């Protein structure tokens, strides 16, 4: 399948409006990490903005706008990760360790992993990209959408988007 067809089946193949990486300079030193939103289609939806406690997801002029981010404001708190109905928000913290990044990923499957578990980290087509270690599991809105904090090799932050408990 060519790249446009892959995209049309729900796989991001390149950066586009609503699905861009954080600015590299700010990202590498930002404790807590920065949000990565992968929401490239105009749909009527704004909970990422309304759930953000610091205004880092810029208010929508039209509810159909794709999200735009004010990166210096983002604290990596992952409230949007837990709220987004499309599970399209992720956080990557590049300061976690030497060559190790911490990803905060939305998770609505069973079983719920526990701290210390080794899990498979999946790419955008469900391929196992690497193994990761669960560092924490939170449930920010008490609504059964968990945020799994998983440490992974730093070079995989642009690939890992889900986990599978093995």
């Amino acid at each position, binding site marked *: 399948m060519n790249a446009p*067809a892959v995209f*049309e*089946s*729900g*796989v*991001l193949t390149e950066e586009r409006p609503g699905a861009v990486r954080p600015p590299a300079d700010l990202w590498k030193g930002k404790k807590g990490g920065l949000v990565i939103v*992968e*929401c*490239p*289609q*105009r*749909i*009527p*939806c*704004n*909970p990422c903005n*309304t*759930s953000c406690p610091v205004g880092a997801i810029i208010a929508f002029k*039209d*509810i*159909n706008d794709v999200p735009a981010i004010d990166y210096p404001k983002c604290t990596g708190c992952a409230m949007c990760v837990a*709220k*987004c*109905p*499309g*599970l*399209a928000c992720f956080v990557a913290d590049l300061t976690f360790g030497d060559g190790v990044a911490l990803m905060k990923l939305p998770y*609505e*499957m*069973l079983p719920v992993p526990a701290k210390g578990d080794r899990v498979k980290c*999946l*790419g*955008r*087509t*469900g*391929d196992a990209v690497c193994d990761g270690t669960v560092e924490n599991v939170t449930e920010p*809105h008490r*609504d059964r*959408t968990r945020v799994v904090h998983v440490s992974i090799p730093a070079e995989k932050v642009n690939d890992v*988007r*889900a986990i*599978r408990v093995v």
Partner: protein
Amino acid sequence: MKEYKTDVLIVGGGPAGLSAAAEAAGAGAEVMVAEGDLHLGGQLVKQSHKFFGSKDEFAGTRGFEIAKILKNEISQYGGRVKTFLDTTVSGYYPDEGAATLMTGEEEYFRVYPRKVVVASGAQERLIPFPNNDIPGVYGAGAVQTLMNVYGVVPGKRVLMIGAGNIGLIVSYQLMQAGVEVAAVVEGMPRVGGYWVHAAKIRRLGIPILLRHSVKRAIGDVFVTGAEITEVDERFNPVGSPTEIECDTICLAVGLAPSGELLWQAGCEMKYVPNLCGHVPYRDRYMRTSNRDVWMAGDVSGIEEASAAMIEGRIAGLAAAESLGYKVKAEKFEIFWARLKNLRAGEVGDKIRAGVAQVVVDGWEAK
């Protein structure tokens, strides 16, 4: 035969009907809601995913939680809203202003409503293919009912037909229930549902096969597989078919508005492909050409539940207003603005074009 009188009869206790009931009762009208199922909420009770939209449409809240919120809202009006469960509106006779209803299979009664809001929803479409009558071939609605209402999984490995929002969401729910999804098959060159719903299941490893179609179900007494084939722009098969191993084929190939009562009420109808079937002409208040009948939700054209809830509020409020109950005119402006926002995106193009074909300036003007 028992007879009842009411200000507003609402046909259907789903998102549109409950929203209509809330507004009509809020304005002071006596309301009767007839719901064919054993519980209120319609399709909302099966929706375990979080809704899109804005806070006004309960964005970020799971569908079944929204059903609870709407039920709470109508319960605050006490006796002003009477709900009849397991009750079908089997006919509407405009000359007499009578509706015939049936609770269960024994109890028949008549209702003389001053106004009617039809929020009867939609019916699933099925597609013909050889062997589609063997056990294991389901509609997506049935799969959701089994899993999310009764806690029963439909099978071990499912082939999903259709990548609209329902096909994508039900695939995700199947994964959550521990059922394997072999693939999602879609005839169009792109997913019809929200891209993020597709991304969600892709990263869990479910392939989405665009420009593919199901050719036949395989199996003697029950489904053991399916034959799928690539198709061209005209949906003609290309190349040789592939066999997929599965014990369930789930059809999520669209819905059609359930407008039978509207036909019976004499409402002017039009076939609008963008709205997925025959739908009534309506003014901005959701009033049909029959001055006593309003409608809302999927029966007015297939759309998301968030839009159905706003349409329901408009219809309920307008029906109450027509009976002389005082309503705040600015409420309509707010609801119209919300509806316009919901439909403004690229996914709303199709709906906007469809509605434009059946909206009239006002029945007086026509």
